[in-house]
């Protein structure tokens, strides 16, 4: 049964030191506010899982909150490198970072297998790809019916998953719309989960019969954080702040400018700082 908590209480309950945790979102609905709260609470030794780790993982890694990252594409989309990730991985600053690298198909299949309660995922992949020779978790199995050799990866088993969504109703049902990524699978593959939301409503209202909804008994905690996905976006609420992604390149390039940015924009702030980015939902699609 989902509990409605403040962001600080929700992060304290859901994200714990040493967790294998995923702050998921495929460009859209990335839980930045929850990531910042995690930094403020000084979480450490996290194993960060994400298909497309972007700025929020650069920030978590840059403050030394992570021991490991599991990923399939680690960059600043359309801009370039994640400089804090590279500094940690290439130079061990502020602490060494272990990586486990996959393809998108492998990560997506691993999340699905985790949600399905299976021990591993099977798919047609990694053929001729060198990742299979550097990541010992990539193995293969022969199909018992045809003999075809297929790739396997272990199911994603998470201690915690953190997502951002447009709406929750007062019963704690959470609805996502637009590009939904692998958030549903991540929540269902995790022991504990947190959804930050733009709005809490009496009724989820007009929606497709096939809307992406996580029922209240699948979510541990919900926190109302309007604007909580900024600088990513919330379809129907606010657009992606592409200028922020471009500006991040310069901020993150240098250790001192990064530390100053974190001090001013994370440590001295709270979730209310995100509200300035929130917008009243537009009617209908887009």
């Amino acid at each position, binding site marked *: 049964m989902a509990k409605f908590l403040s962001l600080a209480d929700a992060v304290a309950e859901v994200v714990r030191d040493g967790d294998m945790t995923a702050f998921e979102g495929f460009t859209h609905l990335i839980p930045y506010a929850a990531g910042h709260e995690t930094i403020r609470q000084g979480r450490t030794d996290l194993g960060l899982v994400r298909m497309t780790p972007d700025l929020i993982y650069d920030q978590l890694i840059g403050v030394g909150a992570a021991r490991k990252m599991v990923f399939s594409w680690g960059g600043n989309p359309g801009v370039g490198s994640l400089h804090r990730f*590279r500094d940690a991985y290439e130079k061990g600053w502020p602490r060494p970072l272990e990586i486990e690298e996959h393809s998108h198909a492998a990560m*997506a299949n691993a999340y699905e297998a985790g949600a399905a309660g299976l021990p591993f995922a099977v798919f047609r*992949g990694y*053929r*001729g790809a060198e990742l299979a020779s550097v990541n010992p978790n990539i193995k293969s199995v022969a199909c018992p019916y045809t003999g075809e050799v297929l790739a396997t990866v272990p199911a994603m088993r998470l201690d915690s998953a953190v997502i951002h969504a447009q709406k929750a109703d007062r019963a704690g049902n959470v609805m996502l719309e637009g590009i939904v*990524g692998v958030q549903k699978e991540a929540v269902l593959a995790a022991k504990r989960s947190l959804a930050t939301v733009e709005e809490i409503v009496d009724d989820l209202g007009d929606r497709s019969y096939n809307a992406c909804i996580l029922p209240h008994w699948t979510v541990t905690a919900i926190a109302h954080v309007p604007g909580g996905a900024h600088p990513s976006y919330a379809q129907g609420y606010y657009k992606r702040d592409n200028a922020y992604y471009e500006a991040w390149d310069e901020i993150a390039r240098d250790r001192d400018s990064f530390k100053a940015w974190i001090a001013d924009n994370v440590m001295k702030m709270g979730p209310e700082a995100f509200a300035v980015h929130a917008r009243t939902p537009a009617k209908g699609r887009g």
Partner: protein
Amino acid sequence: MSTAAKPAYTPTEMMTIVASRALKSSDVCFVGIGAPSAACNLARLTHAPGITLIYESGTIATKPNVLPLSIGDGELCETALTTVPVVEMFRYWLQGGRISIGFLGGAQIDRFANLNTTVIGSYDKPKVRLPGGGGAPEIATSCGEVFIIMAQGKRTFVDKLDFVTSLGHGHGPGHREGLGVTTKGPTRVVTDLCLMEPDAVSKELTVVSIHPGVTREQIAENTGWRIKYAADVADTPAPNGEELSVLRDLQARTKAAMQGKE
């Protein structure tokens, strides 16, 4: 450049336009961000209005008015026929064989069109850690065929890749088949200098068409192996007025949107 007159277009525009010409209305295309996205949308806005563009964020048959900065911009979802979960995108649509063309780029390519987007240097102690493969390892083997678009240079067209992120023609003839791969793999490599295709027998990339004003010396200087030429090398037609104006309008709209002047 042997001619004195400065062409009325840039090498990047030439590359994007040549890539767009290779696409048809009947294609179902898995689109990467950057140069592939520009080429695919140019094709859609000119000679291939019916083309189905798919981005790995789950958007199917999307018709963006501006080029997205990321693979999952809201513009892609808002203009799509439908948006499916990412697991479904990779399982049903890509793995299921529903996509005819995958459009890739990379940091390094070799003579068999294998690609590296993972590291420069060794995997464990890289000189440069690149973003990684993303969807590419499976795009390279599950799409009917693969088009590659990359600016040509000695550091990008290399004799040996630092890491094989995605399979092209492997070590040559029979390599893909030996791995159980039934798709064609790379059939075209478009650069800012020329168009290459794998030789039917050796599978080695071979120059089939040279862009206006480009010399064989320039191509040699910008290739990390001894590049071969087809028996009949064509002259790539220069961009026409429509191609250039539609591409420039698209990029102007994109820039205005980035600056919040939509």
